[in-house]
Protein backbone atom coordinates (compact mmCIF):
# COMPACT_ATOMS: atom_id res chain seq x y z
CA UNK A 1 0.00 0.00 0.00
CA UNK A 2 2.76 2.37 0.98
CA UNK A 3 4.56 1.54 -2.22
CA UNK A 4 1.74 2.48 -4.57
CA UNK A 5 1.21 5.77 -2.73
CA UNK A 6 4.89 6.56 -2.98
CA UNK A 7 4.81 5.85 -6.69
CA UNK A 8 1.75 8.01 -7.08
CA UNK A 9 3.45 10.89 -5.27
CA UNK A 10 6.46 10.45 -7.56
CA UNK A 11 4.27 10.62 -10.67
CA UNK A 12 2.71 13.87 -9.53
CA UNK A 13 6.07 15.33 -8.58
CA UNK A 14 7.51 14.59 -12.02
CA UNK A 15 4.37 15.16 -14.07
CA UNK A 16 3.80 11.59 -15.23
CA UNK A 17 0.16 11.78 -16.26
CA UNK A 18 -0.67 8.30 -17.49
CA UNK A 19 0.71 5.22 -19.18
CA UNK A 20 0.58 6.87 -22.61
CA UNK A 21 2.52 9.98 -21.66
CA UNK A 22 6.15 9.71 -22.79
CA UNK A 23 7.46 12.01 -20.04
CA UNK A 24 9.54 11.88 -17.98
CA UNK A 25 11.59 9.64 -20.31
CA UNK A 26 12.79 7.33 -17.54
CA UNK A 27 9.17 6.41 -16.80
CA UNK A 28 8.19 5.56 -20.34
CA UNK A 29 5.84 2.57 -20.49
CA UNK A 30 4.97 2.81 -16.80
CA UNK A 31 1.71 3.70 -15.12
CA UNK A 32 1.08 7.35 -14.36
CA UNK A 33 -1.01 9.20 -11.79
CA UNK A 34 -4.15 8.21 -13.68
CA UNK A 35 -3.68 4.43 -13.50
CA UNK A 36 -2.04 4.40 -10.08
CA UNK A 37 -4.89 6.30 -8.43
CA UNK A 38 -7.38 3.90 -9.92
CA UNK A 39 -5.35 0.88 -8.86
CA UNK A 40 -4.85 2.17 -5.33
CA UNK A 41 -8.59 2.63 -4.92
CA UNK A 42 -9.22 -0.85 -6.33
CA UNK A 43 -6.73 -2.29 -3.88
CA UNK A 44 -8.83 -0.82 -1.11
CA UNK A 45 -6.60 2.08 -0.10
CA UNK A 46 -8.93 4.59 1.56
CA UNK A 47 -9.53 7.53 -0.80
CA UNK A 48 -8.51 10.02 1.87
CA UNK A 49 -5.10 8.33 1.97
CA UNK A 50 -4.82 8.28 -1.80
CA UNK A 51 -5.33 12.02 -1.69
CA UNK A 52 -3.23 12.98 1.31
CA UNK A 53 -0.47 10.37 1.21
CA UNK A 54 -0.17 10.19 -2.56
CA UNK A 55 -1.27 13.14 -4.67
CA UNK A 56 -0.77 15.84 -2.03
CA UNK A 57 2.73 14.66 -1.14
CA UNK A 58 3.80 14.87 -4.79
CA UNK A 59 2.35 18.32 -5.29
CA UNK A 60 3.92 19.52 -2.03
CA UNK A 61 7.36 18.52 -3.25
CA UNK A 62 6.98 20.51 -6.48
CA UNK A 63 5.68 23.48 -4.50
CA UNK A 64 8.82 23.56 -2.41
CA UNK A 65 11.08 23.19 -5.46
CA UNK A 66 9.19 26.02 -7.17
CA UNK A 67 9.68 28.30 -4.19
CA UNK A 68 13.40 27.51 -4.26
CA UNK A 69 13.62 28.19 -8.03
CA UNK A 70 14.66 24.60 -8.65
CA UNK A 71 11.76 24.12 -11.04
CA UNK A 72 9.76 26.71 -12.95
CA UNK A 73 6.12 27.22 -13.87
CA UNK A 74 5.93 24.62 -16.71
CA UNK A 75 6.99 21.81 -14.38
CA UNK A 76 4.48 22.90 -11.76
CA UNK A 77 1.80 22.83 -14.43
CA UNK A 78 2.83 19.35 -15.55
CA UNK A 79 2.48 18.18 -11.97
CA UNK A 80 -0.88 19.91 -11.65
CA UNK A 81 -2.06 18.11 -14.75
CA UNK A 82 -0.92 14.71 -13.45
CA UNK A 83 -2.66 15.51 -10.17
CA UNK A 84 -5.89 16.39 -11.96
CA UNK A 85 -5.98 12.97 -13.62
CA UNK A 86 -5.74 11.36 -10.18
CA UNK A 87 -8.33 13.72 -8.73
CA UNK A 88 -10.83 12.69 -11.39
CA UNK A 89 -10.98 9.22 -9.78
CA UNK A 90 -11.54 10.76 -6.36
CA UNK A 91 -14.44 12.91 -7.47
CA UNK A 92 -17.19 10.44 -6.48
CA UNK A 93 -15.72 10.34 -2.97
CA UNK A 94 -15.66 14.12 -2.72
CA UNK A 95 -19.26 14.21 -3.84
CA UNK A 96 -20.56 11.59 -1.38
CA UNK A 97 -18.61 13.12 1.47
CA UNK A 98 -16.36 10.13 2.12
CA UNK A 99 -13.26 12.23 1.52
CA UNK A 100 -13.18 15.32 3.63
CA UNK A 101 -10.70 17.92 2.47
CA UNK A 102 -8.73 20.24 4.71
CA UNK A 103 -10.99 23.19 3.97
CA UNK A 104 -12.21 25.43 1.21
CA UNK A 105 -10.87 28.54 -0.48
CA UNK A 106 -12.65 30.94 -2.79
CA UNK A 107 -10.21 32.58 -5.19
CA UNK A 108 -10.48 35.20 -7.91
CA UNK A 109 -8.69 38.07 -9.64
CA UNK A 110 -10.23 41.32 -8.47
CA UNK A 111 -12.53 43.65 -10.35
CA UNK A 112 -10.85 45.55 -13.20
CA UNK A 113 -8.04 43.01 -13.59
CA UNK A 114 -7.83 40.20 -16.14
CA UNK A 115 -4.52 38.59 -15.17
CA UNK A 116 -5.01 34.96 -14.38
CA UNK A 117 -1.84 32.88 -14.65
CA UNK A 118 -0.67 33.68 -11.12
CA UNK A 119 -4.14 33.16 -9.71
CA UNK A 120 -4.47 29.84 -11.54
CA UNK A 121 -1.15 28.65 -10.15
CA UNK A 122 -2.22 29.48 -6.62
CA UNK A 123 -5.55 27.69 -7.17
CA UNK A 124 -3.87 24.55 -8.51
CA UNK A 125 -1.26 24.39 -5.80
CA UNK A 126 -3.72 24.97 -2.96
CA UNK A 127 -5.96 22.28 -4.42
CA UNK A 128 -2.88 20.11 -4.64
CA UNK A 129 -2.33 20.58 -0.92
CA UNK A 130 -5.68 18.98 -0.17
CA UNK A 131 -8.04 21.95 -0.11
CA UNK A 132 -11.20 22.42 -2.12
CA UNK A 133 -10.96 25.39 -4.46
CA UNK A 134 -13.77 27.51 -5.85
CA UNK A 135 -12.32 29.63 -8.65
CA UNK A 136 -14.46 32.64 -9.55
CA UNK A 137 -12.21 33.64 -12.48
CA UNK A 138 -11.03 37.16 -13.31
CA UNK A 139 -12.58 40.62 -12.99
CA UNK A 140 -14.59 39.49 -9.96
CA UNK A 141 -16.49 42.15 -8.01
CA UNK A 142 -17.33 42.32 -4.31
CA UNK A 143 -20.90 41.09 -4.89
CA UNK A 144 -19.71 37.84 -6.44
CA UNK A 145 -17.19 37.20 -3.65
CA UNK A 146 -19.85 37.94 -1.02
CA UNK A 147 -22.35 35.56 -2.64
CA UNK A 148 -19.71 32.83 -2.80
CA UNK A 149 -18.78 33.24 0.88
CA UNK A 150 -22.41 33.24 1.93
CA UNK A 151 -22.89 29.98 0.07
CA UNK A 152 -19.69 28.56 1.61
CA UNK A 153 -19.31 29.95 5.11
CA UNK A 154 -15.91 29.30 6.63
CA UNK A 155 -14.12 29.36 3.28
CA UNK A 156 -10.92 31.42 3.10
CA UNK A 157 -11.14 34.17 0.49
CA UNK A 158 -8.06 34.66 -1.70
CA UNK A 159 -7.67 37.76 -3.85
CA UNK A 160 -5.19 38.25 -6.68
CA UNK A 161 -4.23 41.48 -8.51
CA UNK A 162 -1.35 42.37 -10.81
CA UNK A 163 -1.76 46.11 -11.16
CA UNK A 164 -1.50 48.95 -8.66
CA UNK A 165 -4.73 50.35 -10.11
CA UNK A 166 -6.65 47.16 -9.37
CA UNK A 167 -5.05 46.11 -6.09
CA UNK A 168 -6.94 48.97 -4.45
CA UNK A 169 -10.12 46.99 -5.10
CA UNK A 170 -8.85 44.37 -2.66
CA UNK A 171 -9.73 46.64 0.24
CA UNK A 172 -13.31 47.10 -0.93
CA UNK A 173 -13.81 43.41 -1.60
CA UNK A 174 -12.11 42.27 1.60
CA UNK A 175 -14.23 44.60 3.71
CA UNK A 176 -17.46 43.62 1.97
CA UNK A 177 -16.73 39.95 2.54
CA UNK A 178 -15.88 40.45 6.21
CA UNK A 179 -19.00 42.53 6.73
CA UNK A 180 -21.27 39.97 5.09
CA UNK A 181 -19.77 36.98 6.90
CA UNK A 182 -17.85 38.17 9.97
CA UNK A 183 -14.72 36.21 10.75
CA UNK A 184 -13.97 35.37 7.12
CA UNK A 185 -10.22 35.14 6.55
CA UNK A 186 -8.97 37.10 3.53
CA UNK A 187 -5.60 36.36 1.88
CA UNK A 188 -4.08 38.55 -0.82
CA UNK A 189 -1.26 38.25 -3.33
CA UNK A 190 0.10 39.26 -6.75
CA UNK A 191 3.24 41.05 -7.93
CA UNK A 192 2.53 44.62 -6.75
CA UNK A 193 1.05 43.54 -3.39
CA UNK A 194 3.20 43.36 -0.24
CA UNK A 195 2.93 42.92 3.52
CA UNK A 196 2.69 46.66 4.18
CA UNK A 197 -0.22 47.03 1.82
CA UNK A 198 -1.93 44.04 3.38
CA UNK A 199 -1.55 45.51 6.87
CA UNK A 200 -2.76 48.88 5.68
CA UNK A 201 -6.00 47.56 4.24
CA UNK A 202 -6.55 45.19 7.16
CA UNK A 203 -6.30 41.82 5.43
CA UNK A 204 -5.36 38.67 7.32
CA UNK A 205 -2.60 37.21 5.18
CA UNK A 206 -0.24 38.22 2.43
CA UNK A 207 1.99 35.66 0.75
CA UNK A 208 4.44 36.29 -2.08
CA UNK A 209 3.94 32.81 -3.49
CA UNK A 210 1.51 29.89 -3.38
CA UNK A 211 3.66 27.96 -0.91
CA UNK A 212 3.39 30.80 1.61
CA UNK A 213 -0.39 30.60 1.45
CA UNK A 214 -0.30 26.81 1.74
CA UNK A 215 1.88 27.06 4.86
CA UNK A 216 -0.56 29.55 6.37
CA UNK A 217 -3.57 27.40 5.53
CA UNK A 218 -1.80 24.36 6.98
CA UNK A 219 -1.50 26.13 10.32
CA UNK A 220 -5.20 26.92 10.42
CA UNK A 221 -6.18 23.30 10.93
Amino acid at each position, binding site marked *: MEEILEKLAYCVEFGKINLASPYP*PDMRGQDGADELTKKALEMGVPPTEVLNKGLVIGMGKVGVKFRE*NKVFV*PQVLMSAKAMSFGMAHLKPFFNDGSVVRKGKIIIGTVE*GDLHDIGKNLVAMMVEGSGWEVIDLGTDVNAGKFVAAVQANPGAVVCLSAL*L*TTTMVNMEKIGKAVKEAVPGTIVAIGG*APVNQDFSNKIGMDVYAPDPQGLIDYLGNLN
Partner: protein
Amino acid sequence: MHPSQKDFAYTFDELNISVELVEEAMGYERGQSPDPIPEMIASAIDQCADLCNIKGSLLVSDSFALDPSGVIETLGVKFLVGRKIGAQLKHAEGGAFYICTAGAGIGERSKDLMACGDLVEGYILDVIGSLTVESAIDKIQGVFELEMIDAGKRIASRYSPGYCGWALKEQKQFFELFPENHCGIKLSESCLMDPIKSVSGIIGFGANIRNTVYECQMCELDTCVYRTIRLARRK
Protein backbone atom coordinates in the same frame (compact mmCIF):
# COMPACT_ATOMS: atom_id res chain seq x y z
CA MET B 1 10.22 69.63 -36.06
CA HIS B 2 6.52 68.86 -36.40
CA PRO B 3 5.13 66.05 -34.35
CA SER B 4 5.07 62.90 -36.40
CA GLN B 5 3.18 59.69 -35.90
CA LYS B 6 4.37 56.50 -37.48
CA ASP B 7 2.64 53.13 -37.40
CA PHE B 8 4.43 49.79 -37.55
CA ALA B 9 3.31 46.24 -38.26
CA TYR B 10 5.36 43.05 -38.04
CA THR B 11 4.80 39.42 -38.79
CA PHE B 12 5.60 36.99 -36.02
CA ASP B 13 8.47 35.50 -38.02
CA GLU B 14 10.19 38.86 -38.34
CA LEU B 15 10.68 38.90 -34.58
CA ASN B 16 12.86 35.77 -34.49
CA ILE B 17 11.53 34.38 -31.25
CA SER B 18 13.55 31.28 -30.46
CA VAL B 19 13.01 28.31 -28.18
CA GLU B 20 15.95 29.50 -26.06
CA LEU B 21 14.48 32.95 -25.59
CA VAL B 22 11.22 31.43 -24.37
CA GLU B 23 13.06 29.07 -22.02
CA GLU B 24 14.91 32.00 -20.56
CA ALA B 25 11.73 34.00 -20.04
CA MET B 26 10.30 31.04 -18.11
CA GLY B 27 13.30 30.97 -15.77
CA TYR B 28 15.50 28.27 -17.34
CA GLU B 29 18.94 28.78 -18.68
CA ARG B 30 19.07 28.64 -22.46
CA GLY B 31 18.83 25.08 -23.71
CA GLN B 32 18.28 23.74 -20.21
CA SER B 33 14.53 23.21 -19.88
CA PRO B 34 13.67 19.54 -19.36
CA ASP B 35 11.80 17.43 -21.90
CA PRO B 36 9.11 17.83 -23.18
CA ILE B 37 9.27 21.59 -22.74
CA PRO B 38 11.59 22.48 -25.66
CA GLU B 39 9.41 20.48 -28.04
CA MET B 40 6.26 22.11 -26.72
CA ILE B 41 7.79 25.56 -27.13
CA ALA B 42 8.80 24.79 -30.71
CA SER B 43 5.31 23.64 -31.61
CA ALA B 44 3.79 26.73 -29.93
CA ILE B 45 6.12 28.98 -31.93
CA ASP B 46 4.86 27.30 -35.10
CA GLN B 47 1.29 28.36 -34.32
CA CYS B 48 2.05 31.96 -33.51
CA ALA B 49 2.07 33.39 -37.03
CA ASP B 50 -1.71 32.90 -37.09
CA LEU B 51 -2.32 34.04 -33.54
CA CYS B 52 -0.49 37.37 -33.53
CA ASN B 53 -1.48 40.70 -34.96
CA ILE B 54 1.54 42.80 -34.12
CA LYS B 55 1.13 46.54 -34.34
CA GLY B 56 2.74 49.57 -32.85
CA SER B 57 2.73 53.31 -33.08
CA LEU B 58 5.32 55.95 -32.30
CA LEU B 59 4.43 59.58 -31.77
CA VAL B 60 7.49 61.80 -31.85
CA SER B 61 7.24 65.28 -30.40
CA ASP B 62 9.72 67.98 -29.49
CA SER B 63 7.15 70.41 -28.18
CA PHE B 64 8.09 68.96 -24.87
CA ALA B 65 8.35 70.40 -21.39
CA LEU B 66 9.50 68.55 -18.30
CA ASP B 67 9.41 70.20 -14.89
CA PRO B 68 11.55 69.16 -11.90
CA SER B 69 8.68 67.31 -10.22
CA GLY B 70 8.49 65.08 -13.27
CA VAL B 71 5.47 66.46 -15.11
CA ILE B 72 5.70 66.09 -18.89
CA GLU B 73 3.65 68.37 -21.07
CA THR B 74 3.44 67.67 -24.77
CA LEU B 75 0.92 68.24 -27.57
CA GLY B 76 -1.65 69.58 -25.12
CA VAL B 77 -1.42 66.57 -22.83
CA LYS B 78 0.07 66.58 -19.33
CA PHE B 79 1.10 63.65 -17.14
CA LEU B 80 3.30 62.94 -14.15
CA VAL B 81 6.18 60.53 -14.74
CA GLY B 82 7.73 61.29 -11.35
CA ARG B 83 11.15 62.45 -10.20
CA LYS B 84 13.10 59.29 -10.97
CA ILE B 85 12.23 59.13 -14.66
CA GLY B 86 12.22 62.92 -14.79
CA ALA B 87 15.88 62.92 -13.71
CA GLN B 88 16.79 60.43 -16.44
CA LEU B 89 15.09 62.59 -19.08
CA LYS B 90 16.47 65.90 -17.84
CA HIS B 91 18.40 66.58 -21.06
CA ALA B 92 15.70 65.32 -23.43
CA GLU B 93 14.71 67.61 -26.27
CA GLY B 94 11.61 65.58 -26.92
CA GLY B 95 9.88 62.31 -26.47
CA ALA B 96 8.77 59.44 -28.65
CA PHE B 97 5.58 58.03 -27.15
CA TYR B 98 4.70 54.49 -28.05
CA ILE B 99 1.99 51.88 -27.81
CA CYS B 100 2.47 48.36 -29.11
CA THR B 101 0.54 45.11 -29.07
CA ALA B 102 0.87 41.45 -30.03
CA GLY B 103 -2.88 41.37 -30.72
CA ALA B 104 -5.69 39.64 -28.88
CA GLY B 105 -5.46 36.21 -30.49
CA ILE B 106 -2.47 34.84 -28.64
CA GLY B 107 -3.76 35.77 -25.19
CA GLU B 108 -7.20 34.38 -25.95
CA ARG B 109 -5.81 31.11 -27.25
CA SER B 110 -3.63 30.83 -24.15
CA LYS B 111 -6.67 31.27 -21.88
CA ASP B 112 -8.71 28.72 -23.85
CA LEU B 113 -5.95 26.14 -23.63
CA MET B 114 -5.55 26.59 -19.90
CA ALA B 115 -9.30 26.42 -19.37
CA CYS B 116 -9.49 23.04 -21.07
CA GLY B 117 -6.61 21.59 -19.08
CA ASP B 118 -3.73 22.12 -21.52
CA LEU B 119 -1.88 24.02 -18.87
CA VAL B 120 1.68 23.99 -20.14
CA GLU B 121 0.63 24.72 -23.72
CA GLY B 122 -1.44 27.69 -22.51
CA TYR B 123 1.34 29.03 -20.33
CA ILE B 124 3.91 28.77 -23.11
CA LEU B 125 1.69 30.84 -25.40
CA ASP B 126 1.26 33.40 -22.63
CA VAL B 127 5.03 33.77 -22.33
CA ILE B 128 5.48 33.95 -26.11
CA GLY B 129 2.80 36.67 -26.21
CA SER B 130 4.80 38.75 -23.74
CA LEU B 131 8.04 38.21 -25.66
CA THR B 132 6.31 39.11 -28.91
CA VAL B 133 5.22 42.52 -27.78
CA GLU B 134 8.57 43.16 -26.09
CA SER B 135 10.48 42.18 -29.24
CA ALA B 136 8.22 44.32 -31.40
CA ILE B 137 8.84 47.40 -29.30
CA ASP B 138 12.58 46.62 -29.36
CA LYS B 139 12.41 46.69 -33.14
CA ILE B 140 10.48 49.94 -33.20
CA GLN B 141 13.01 51.45 -30.81
CA GLY B 142 15.79 50.23 -33.11
CA VAL B 143 14.28 52.00 -36.10
CA PHE B 144 13.83 55.18 -34.10
CA GLU B 145 17.36 55.06 -32.72
CA LEU B 146 18.83 54.89 -36.24
CA GLU B 147 16.76 57.90 -37.28
CA MET B 148 18.00 59.81 -34.27
CA ILE B 149 21.63 58.86 -34.92
CA ASP B 150 21.22 60.21 -38.45
CA ALA B 151 19.95 63.43 -36.95
CA GLY B 152 22.95 63.62 -34.59
CA LYS B 153 20.94 62.68 -31.50
CA ARG B 154 20.79 59.88 -28.99
CA ILE B 155 17.97 58.10 -27.28
CA ALA B 156 17.29 57.35 -23.62
CA SER B 157 16.10 54.02 -22.23
CA ARG B 158 12.40 53.21 -22.48
CA TYR B 159 10.14 53.94 -19.53
CA SER B 160 6.55 52.82 -19.02
CA PRO B 161 3.59 53.82 -16.90
CA GLY B 162 3.58 51.52 -13.88
CA TYR B 163 7.38 51.54 -13.53
CA CYS B 164 9.91 53.57 -11.56
CA GLY B 165 7.42 55.91 -9.93
CA TRP B 166 5.34 56.64 -13.05
CA ALA B 167 1.91 55.76 -11.65
CA LEU B 168 -0.18 53.48 -13.78
CA LYS B 169 -3.21 55.74 -13.44
CA GLU B 170 -1.34 58.40 -15.43
CA GLN B 171 -1.88 56.12 -18.39
CA LYS B 172 -5.31 57.80 -18.82
CA GLN B 173 -3.67 61.09 -19.87
CA PHE B 174 -0.95 59.31 -21.80
CA PHE B 175 -3.53 57.62 -24.02
CA GLU B 176 -4.98 60.98 -25.01
CA LEU B 177 -1.94 61.30 -27.26
CA PHE B 178 -3.31 58.58 -29.53
CA PRO B 179 -6.58 58.29 -31.43
CA GLU B 180 -9.10 56.04 -29.74
CA ASN B 181 -8.56 52.33 -30.33
CA HIS B 182 -5.32 53.01 -32.18
CA CYS B 183 -3.55 49.73 -33.17
CA GLY B 184 -6.62 48.03 -31.69
CA ILE B 185 -5.56 48.93 -28.14
CA LYS B 186 -8.24 50.04 -25.69
CA LEU B 187 -7.61 51.33 -22.21
CA SER B 188 -10.03 50.20 -19.50
CA GLU B 189 -11.31 52.20 -16.51
CA SER B 190 -8.65 50.47 -14.39
CA CYS B 191 -5.89 51.39 -16.89
CA LEU B 192 -5.53 47.88 -18.21
CA MET B 193 -4.77 47.70 -21.90
CA ASP B 194 -6.84 45.33 -23.99
CA PRO B 195 -5.33 43.18 -25.60
CA ILE B 196 -3.43 42.04 -22.50
CA LYS B 197 -0.21 41.61 -24.48
CA SER B 198 0.34 45.34 -24.95
CA VAL B 199 2.84 47.92 -23.74
CA SER B 200 3.11 51.70 -23.64
CA GLY B 201 5.77 54.23 -22.74
CA ILE B 202 8.25 56.91 -23.70
CA ILE B 203 11.67 57.08 -25.31
CA GLY B 204 13.36 60.42 -24.66
CA PHE B 205 15.82 61.82 -27.21
CA GLY B 206 18.23 64.68 -27.59
CA ALA B 207 21.77 65.63 -28.53
CA ASN B 208 22.84 65.62 -24.88
CA ILE B 209 21.09 62.52 -23.63
CA ARG B 210 23.49 60.50 -21.54
CA ASN B 211 23.32 56.76 -21.10
CA THR B 212 20.30 56.41 -18.93
CA VAL B 213 19.47 53.75 -16.40
CA TYR B 214 16.89 51.31 -17.62
CA GLU B 215 13.76 50.17 -15.85
CA CYS B 216 15.05 46.90 -14.39
CA GLN B 217 17.95 48.69 -12.73
CA MET B 218 15.64 51.21 -11.07
CA CYS B 219 12.80 48.88 -10.21
CA GLU B 220 12.10 48.09 -6.56
CA LEU B 221 9.75 45.18 -7.04
CA ASP B 222 11.06 42.53 -4.62
CA THR B 223 8.60 39.94 -5.83
CA CYS B 224 9.56 40.24 -9.51
CA VAL B 225 9.88 36.81 -11.11
CA TYR B 226 12.89 38.00 -13.11
CA ARG B 227 14.66 39.31 -10.04
CA THR B 228 14.13 36.16 -7.96
CA ILE B 229 15.44 34.04 -10.79
CA ARG B 230 18.48 36.25 -11.25
CA LEU B 231 19.27 36.20 -7.54
CA ALA B 232 18.92 32.43 -7.40
CA ARG B 233 21.43 32.13 -10.26
CA ARG B 234 23.96 34.28 -8.51
CA LYS B 235 23.95 32.04 -5.41
